[in-house]
């Protein structure tokens, strides 16, 4: 099993969600987050005073997938989330040892 964490533009959430549903991804967790990579934020001006906002609002998706599905899911995210401009985000992978469904204590990939 693999955990896929994708940090994407807020505006791309619906597109990514739809693309993942299309290839059969059944569950996901979505978080509103703030952060920055190379894109260094923007400036806001209030009554002539400048404030630089370097932590930008982003959306983070967390999916835990059977290994067979990972590549398809990654392609779906890459296609749906890309604008080609700086700030499109990143995808991270982590190996997952175990998963348990709380309702019936089912384990392994069947719990996903």
């Amino acid at each position, binding site marked *: 099993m693999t955990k896929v964490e994708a940090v994407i533009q807020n505006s791309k959430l619906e597109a990514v969600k739809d693309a993942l549903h299309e290839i059969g991804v059944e569950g996901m967790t979505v978080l509103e987050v703030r952060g920055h990579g190379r894109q260094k934020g923007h400036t*806001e*001006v*209030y*009554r*002539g*005073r400048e*404030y*630089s906002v370097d932590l930008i609002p982003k959306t983070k998706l967390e999916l835990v997938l059977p290994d067979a599905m990972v590549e398809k899911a990654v392609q779906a995210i890459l296609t749906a989330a890309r604008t080609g401009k700086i700030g499109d985000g990143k995808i991270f992978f982590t190996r997952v040892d175990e998963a348990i469904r709380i309702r019936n204590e089912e384990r392994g990939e069947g719990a996903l």
Partner: protein
Amino acid sequence: MFVLERGKLIGEEEPALIPKLSLVLLLLVFTQPLLPQTASPSAAPTAAPTSDTNARLAKLEQQAADAKSSADNAWMLTSAALVLMMTGPGLALFYGGLVRKKNVLGTMMQSFALMAVITVLWALFSFSLAFGPGNGFIGGLHHLFLKGVGAAPDADYAGTIPLETFMIYQLMFAIITPGLIAGAFAERMKFSAMAVFMILWSVIVYDPMAHMVWGKGGLLNAALGGRFPTLDFAGGTVVHITSGVSALVCALYLGKRVGYPREPMPPHSVVLSFIGACLLWVGWFGFNAGSALSAGSLATSAFVATHFAAAAAAAGWAGAEWLRSGKPTTLGAISGSVAGLVAITPASGFVKPMPALLIGLIAGVFCYWMVAVVKAKFGYDDSLDAFGVHGAGGTLGALLTGVFASSVVNPIFKDTQGNTLPSGLIEGNAHQVVNQLVAVAISWALAIVGTLVILKIVDATIGLRVSEAEEIQGLDLSQHGEDGYHWETPA
């Protein structure tokens, strides 16, 4: 003959009465020849219709006066409500949105507390100190506990409305004025210290200033024989200079907020400020047009001047920052409208529409410069720009009133024969600018000295500032045990 004279007199005041009066005259014409036919030809019956007509005319005059009084009173009660709306929710939202999230309730509570506290003071003695008969500087205790304040008008102030209406209208000004100062010490003053400061400030600075400018026998009163007749229609000196200058003194005395200017402290909700500013704009019609103290054409003139200045100033501020930093901001536009409303306040009942536009435009650009350039240069932490907008805009407005005041709009100065004299500099009365300067100097001096004394007293007794830990925690929790927003609390 007598009837005709009376008719002419009333007709001048109230054109709508002419049809009614001609009816009475017609009645008179028809009843005169009829009566002798039915009655015996003695002296008594011919005298009867004359006295009857006189009685009816007297009744009609009374009804006309009552009608005018009702119309004026309706507008003045509406205006009083509009001015209260400027403090809560107007000012509370305007300031509340400008502070950080953790201080939103503490800031709104400062405005609201004044609605309660100043009202009580006003009822007990403050109205008397401001508007009771006294000397050139302060009223006496003639109206202590509102003694003698009832349905009867006071002809010196407003001859057509109950003195009680005048009292409640003026109270709303006394409430909002100290509320404006709160913008300078936002996010760092103890609630207890704020309450004591405001009570003392209202009595030591506001009441005397209101008496000097608007009270009978006041040193600066233009209509009731002051030594330096000052044109201040709705409170450029009394409200905005006193509060704005006191705000600067507070900002300097209290010092900066923890972390200022290193940490960013942007407004937590320009949306709240936006709603507040729009409520202020609408409420200001009660503030300025209501200061005509009647519902006639002077109120209209002040209403128009007020609106025009606010519009021009919004464009001026937003335009200036557009040129300087590339974008016109929402906060700039609404701040500009408030600056224009401040500047037109003393002038509103004296200037024509074109000077009103000009005053607004100048105020918008000038206050933007004060806030964006001057404040940054000197480094004082006037957190919400109470000085930059009210102190600077009020001073500008008070001086420009002396320049643009027009005797066509408001024939305030008359010679002993009752002929109208010129009002402002543009009409040739250069001396008026000097009088305005005197009033500006007196209000600056009173605000500086009064505020410093009060701050020293409160600082030495209960202390002014919250502790650093409380300031970091925020006023909402540390002063009131509440949190303004619970949006993330689980259901």
